[in-house]
């Protein structure tokens, strides 16, 4: 049967109220300056000529009629490639508050059309779920009556944690007496900037972070470390004294490691640690997805590949026959590269099987820790289905692993770091401290740092989330100089310092009423309460109501 072509509707046809974000444009305020259309990262806004009916009534002639006025209006594209992502840059640049996106309260029909041209929907960002179990946890064991409360402003607090293999005391004494190798241990701030690669992040963003981290260490005495993510880092950083603030990540693509290995003889100091990525919370079982438009000349050089080609990392390491074998070999090889002076630890996605990995590490004398990344972790690029539905929430996974170590009398011997959703709704210190009291030695924060330090526009309502496309309107995740020069590294560094100073104060404000100041309260689960009985039972903490 021949379709009727005169009706302009196809299966893929969408109108503006089918889209997740609707542009509200107030014609009477608009001066047609064009700033919104030029800033829009998805080129969703365009000028169109519209006709406006002007009703006319001539009473004396008893005649009615209409005249028409032609005007220039701003409309949003209904083509999904150019859809509005709600980033709000248009309203940010509009001098007259004439334009801005509002979330569509109606059903989002565009979702059904997200698979286009045979491709499943890929995006950057986060899981887009505002639910946070960590937000519900409160700190209930207040020492005020049984003991004098501590003064968060005046007492001395030791807030640092340890990254590195902690020996049983008996073994430490034996090795000390016989002059044997003692595993390296770093004293670091328990909030770590999580792995975001030089490639996923723009040079200005990455260097701004590094500058902020260096300031925290050298001026503020907050020993913050940041992880590079896969893809190495600029050669001058590898040969600089700032390397000691960096955790170098090796992942399944081994990108950037030629450069790193070559730089070893010229390194002024050791890196803080080496992270071997086996999995990540946002896309378990999937490798990195750096698309060709983000592979600039600089990135290509660092990674040792041609520019402008897709760089999908394989889902597993090439050496991986069994996880035990791979973990053992890689940890040992990388420890050896720095002559056993640098802690080496794996990063895995949270999973029902995390305990198996942990128990394997306990038996590996060179393993220095374990980072578990929960389903709420963010990423630069992933398939939507992976990001939203694959993985395990971090809280119960972490708790199980910690209690498993406790049962073996080995708590914190393999320090467990937790990530995935810490600070997703802005409560970064509360979330992090809850994790620590559930048994984490520290937490990794990625999305929060982008939002707090660089003004990332993404949120848990699928706002923006175009990190994968290289069109980040703030210049955070773009390799396009026109975009990333919007971001001033000095200002990023300043925000990093602000953020960590704030976290430090909030940590004291949480620890002081609990009577803790001399040691990070790792595993102090008696301090925690939650108003959800099932979660309380699962996490073995107190149910409060």
């Amino acid at each position, binding site marked *: 049967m021949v379709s009727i072509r005169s009706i302009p509707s196809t299966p893929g046809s969408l109108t503006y109220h089918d889209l997740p974000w609707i542009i509200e444009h107030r014609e009477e305020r608009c001066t047609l300056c064009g700033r919104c259309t030029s800033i829009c990262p998805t080129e969703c806004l365009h000028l169109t000529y519209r006709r406006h009916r002007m009703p006319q009534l001539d009473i004396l002639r008893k005649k009615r009629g209409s005249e028409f006025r032609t005007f220039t209006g701003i409309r949003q594209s209904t083509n999904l490639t150019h859809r509005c992502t709600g980033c709000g840059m248009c309203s940010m640049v509009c001098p007259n508050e004439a334009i801005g996106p509002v979330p569509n309260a109606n059903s989002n029909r565009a979702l059904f059309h997200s698979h286009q041209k045979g491709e499943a929907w890929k995006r950057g960002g986060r899981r887009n779920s505002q639910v946070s179990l960590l937000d519900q946890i409160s700190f209930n*064991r207040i*020492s005020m009556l*049984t*003991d*004098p409360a*501590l003064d968060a402003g005046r*007492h*001395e607090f*030791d807030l640092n944690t*340890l990254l590195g293999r*902690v*020996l*049983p*005391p*008996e073994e*430490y*004494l034996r090795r*000390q*007496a016989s002059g044997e190798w*003692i595993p390296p*241990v770093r*004293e670091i701030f328990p909030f770590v900037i999580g792995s975001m690669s030089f490639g996923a992040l723009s040079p200005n963003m990455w260097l701004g972070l590094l500058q902020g981290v260096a300031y925290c260490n050298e001026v503020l005495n907050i020993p913050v470390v940041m992880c590079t993510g896969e893809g190495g880092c600029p050669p001058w950083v590898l040969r600089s004294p700032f390397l000691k603030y960096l955790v170098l990540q090796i992942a399944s693509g081994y990108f950037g490691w030629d450069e790193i290995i070559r730089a070893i003889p010229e390194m002024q100091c050791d890196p803080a640690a080496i992270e071997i990525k086996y999995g990540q919370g946002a896309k378990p079982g999937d490798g990195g997805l750096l698309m060709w438009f983000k592979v600039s000349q600089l990135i290509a050089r660092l990674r040792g590949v041609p520019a402008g080609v897709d760089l999908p990392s394989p889902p597993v390491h090439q050496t991986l026959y069994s996880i035990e074998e791979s973990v053992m070999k890689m940890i040992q090889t990388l420890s050896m590269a720095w002559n056993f002076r640098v802690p080496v630890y794996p990063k895995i996605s949270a999973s029902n099987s995390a305990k198996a990995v942990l128990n394997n590490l306990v038996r590996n004398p060179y393993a220095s820790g374990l980072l578990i990344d929960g389903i709420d972790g963010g990423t630069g690029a992933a398939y939507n289905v992976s990001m939203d539905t694959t993985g395990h929430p971090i809280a119960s996974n972490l708790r199980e692993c910690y209690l498993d*170590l*406790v*049962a*073996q*009398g*080995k*708590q*914190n011997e393999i320090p467990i770091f937790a990530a995935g959703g810490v600070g997703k709704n802005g409560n970064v210190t509360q979330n992090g401290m809850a994790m620590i009291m559930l048994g984490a030695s520290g937490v990794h924060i990625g999305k929060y740092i982008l939002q707090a330090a660089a003004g990332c526009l993404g949120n848990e309502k699928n706002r923006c989330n175009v990190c994968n496309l290289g069109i980040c309107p703030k210049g955070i995740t773009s390799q396009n100089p026109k975009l990333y020069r919007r971001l001033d590294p000095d200002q990023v560094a300043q925000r990093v310092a602000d953020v960590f100073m704030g976290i430090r104060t909030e940590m004291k404000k949480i620890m002081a009423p*609990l*009577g*803790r*100041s*001399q*040691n990070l*309260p*790792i*595993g*102090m*689960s*008696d301090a925690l309460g939650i108003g959800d009985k099932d979660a309380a039972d699962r996490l073995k903490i107190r149910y409060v109501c």
Partner: protein
Amino acid sequence: MCRLAMKTAAEPFSPYSVLQAMEAMREGYDGSGLGLLLRGVNFADFNYQSNDPILSGIAHSEAALHRLNDLMQTKGFTLKYDHEFVVKPEMLEARDRHKYFLRVYKQPDAWATWDKERVEHELMLNRLDLRENGIKNNGDLTVFAFWPDVAIIKEVGWPLVVGDALGLSDDRITSRICMAQGRQNTNYGINLYACHPFFIQGIGTMTNGENTAFVPIKEYLSGLNLPGYVGYQSDSEVFAHILHYVIRQLKLPLETYKHVITPLKTSELANHPQGEFLLGLRNVCRRLIIDGPNCIMGSLPDETSILAMDTKKMRPATIGGKPGEWAMASEMCGVDAMIPDRDKSLDFQPMRENTVIVPAHRKEYIIWSQFDPYPLPQAA
């Protein structure tokens, strides 16, 4: 808040004198219980040989007492002396105390060939057996200690009243060390096992204040699966077990205790002569760092006594006395009550880095600082 009083003297004295010091410190405290640890024990009615183990505890029923007798007989212990308390039950709050016992046993003949460590291990296992037996039988048998030269008494009530009720003023029991603590653990519910002083293999400690890092420390000690690291009805029990762990498991000098529970800061260790060793020790013993506020008093099998505080020093204590006789208390008036005729210029309140050690000779006390060189050759 608990009151602590401890006296150590070359000549045995009555525990009642320490209870009077508790009374002097009565202001501002609820006096809900009494725990007494006597070391270097003398019985007026019995010529005690200090190698024989003393079993301290309470049988709450006649059946429990019979069971205890049977158990001890089965294990091969011979009863040498059973101290009869002159009890005035009407003065006690508790109504189910059938018999307080302090019994001296002769250890089984088979043990004669065993080395000291094995004997001490067996003594602990026997105590744990008896304790377990009591718990299984609805708590009708409570055992505080089974160790040579150590007697422990614990009861609910006002300390001096408990002392009167048990006739402790009659000088039939005296000792060279007496540790007294005056409060049941009201933070975690009344339970005789929650009462200080805590004891394990000759090591006894008592504490005031609250150990806010209790749960992670308890979890670590329990996870070691060493016999004896059980109980934890009180957050303060871990102090005794940490001291035991440092001295008996790690076999480190007494001075290490303070380095384990309240290690120096990284910047301080950087300037310490054995800083590198101590930093490593801090890292591996990090799970045993206490967070206070606590004052800790303890005594060891060789009659050494110690006094230390947590880093914040919000539970101060004073030591004072004269050669041959020293007293420590959480309140200065407690020291005054125990040794009034002393030179007060010798009084000392330890700072956060100090451990006060009174050696067995009791001629003087030693103020040891964490900043001092650490006395272990392997750390050099």
